[in-house]
């Protein structure tokens, strides 16, 4: 177990090369890729998520921890079985139409990946039809929308309506977040979940899909 703890610590201390090295060592020591993923990488990102939630660390730390996690994932991915590559669920994520503020969305995407979700990142300025197309193509479990400025809030509601009109509303869970969104508003427009920040977004995603 010591090597798994080393992986977790290497993420928490922002050391991508060490995470990669320790993941390789763990495999050589006979640990299963799934164990390394859960007890090393995801465990490390869980700590990062909690620290971010408590404002103990900030964007640079989350990004470099995510980079460290990806360094480990690159070692494990070829060995993980198809069922383990998306252990939690599939999330299509983007910032809504006309919104170009993407750092929050990027953090959520990384935290979700770190927590074991498969994430399809559509980028910025995503029109409702693009969310729909991606949800269909990837058979998404969750559609996650980010909105930072209040002038683009109307696109959050418009996207939810578009899913209803396309007959897909009951096929996906929709979660929303970002600086312009308040919880009451999210509920009012029919979102299934609201995340105040990237760490909460992971908790919401898990709760929506009833996974741990």
């Amino acid at each position, binding site marked *: 177990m010591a090597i798994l703890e080393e992986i977790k610590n290497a993420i928490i201390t922002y050391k991508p090369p060490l995470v990669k090295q320790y993941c390789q060592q763990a495999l050589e020591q006979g640990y299963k890729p799934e164990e390394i993923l859960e007890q090393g990488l995801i465990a490390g990102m869980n700590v990062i998520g909690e620290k971010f939630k408590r404002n103990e*660390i900030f964007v*640079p730390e989350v990004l470099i921890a995510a*980079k460290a996690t990806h360094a480990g994932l690159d070692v494990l991915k070829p060995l993980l079985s198809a069922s383990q590559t998306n252990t939690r669920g599939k999330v299509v994520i983007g910032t809504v139409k*006309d919104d170009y503020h993407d750092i929050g969305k990027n953090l959520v995407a990384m935290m979700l990946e770190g927590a074991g979700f498969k994430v399809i990142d559509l980028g910025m300025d995503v029109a409702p039809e693009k969310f729909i197309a991606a949800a269909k193509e990837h058979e998404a479990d969750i559609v996650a929308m980010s909105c930072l*400025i209040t*002038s683009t*809030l109307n696109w959050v509601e418009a996207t939810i309506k578009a899913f209803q009109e396309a007959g897909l509303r009951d096929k996906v869970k929709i979660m929303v977040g970002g600086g312009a969104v308040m919880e009451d508003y999210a509920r009012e427009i029919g979102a299934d979940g609201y995340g105040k920040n990237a760490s909460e977004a992971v908790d919401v995603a898990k709760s929506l899909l009833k996974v741990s």
Partner: protein
Amino acid sequence: MGFYPSWWYKNYGISYNKEYYHDPDYRVDAFQKQQKILYERFGDVGLGKPDPQPEPFVDYGMVLLPAVFGCEIKFFDDAIPWAMPLNLTEKEIFELKVPDILNTYPMTDIIKQMDYLESKYGRVTGSINTTGVLNLGLKLRGDQLYLDFYENPELVHHLFNICTEAIIQLAQYVKSRTGMLAPAVTPMAPPEMYVLPDCTVVQISREVFEEFVLPYENRLSAVLRPFGIHHCGKADHMLEGYAKVQNLEFLEVGPMTDLKRLRELMPNIHVNARIDPVRMLNCTSEEIAEDVRRIIDTGAPYDKLSIDAVGCDYGTPDENVRAMLKTARDYSLERMAALQQ
């Protein structure tokens, strides 16, 4: 009190697209109309003017320096312009030099506008938002900059040196023409003050700020005086860092900042506390009034405190605007009277 472009466009059809920033007659005319509209709609709470005169001002959102460096700029009818990050490589950053700002578009157009307004009105006012060191660095390097703090500190310092020099050159020129630097950042600081836009500082730790950003803010505060800082969002985790900024005379902080702690650390500066435009849009007028009262209760002394709510979006209830302004006026008078007893 200020309203976001979407409020103006969706209520009154006043567009903030490219024409607003490149056609001085359009902009001056739009501003005159806006002052009249504000008076008609909110004159009872002190906004607007019944007979506004033309104000010959320049403006370029927050995108002038990013554009000069080569960022693509997106314009919108109902939003402020947005600079797309350049995402320069490590090699490109180390080869980067301060551009010839005054001879690079769109600054060349701004200078032409200044000349035109001066010839037409006998003066030119307003200012150009320089963006801050971190803000500009992020536009040039992109999100990779966040990783550079840990992986490539030398790059960060090289980049911030260039950003700082560019900011100084732009600010000095603008001040020489209009005498103003603050209006493009905040209406609440003295117009001649340089107010550094620290919008993205909320995303980094105090340790990263002190190592990478503070030295450049101190260089700016040594050259561009009087000096202030605009900080978007809650500033609590950065207050000890801001206390180390030399020559700081004004600090604008976002919603829910711990003003009591701020005063302990920086007792002599003027504080402008902002009401959250998202709450202005979504909350009740009593909740807004409570936000204002909280600021007044914790933000004394009152000769060094102001409150504003800017960026209010389309759909912000008029009663919230009135609640904010009336509470700010009435409650502060009540508290000041109580202090004198």
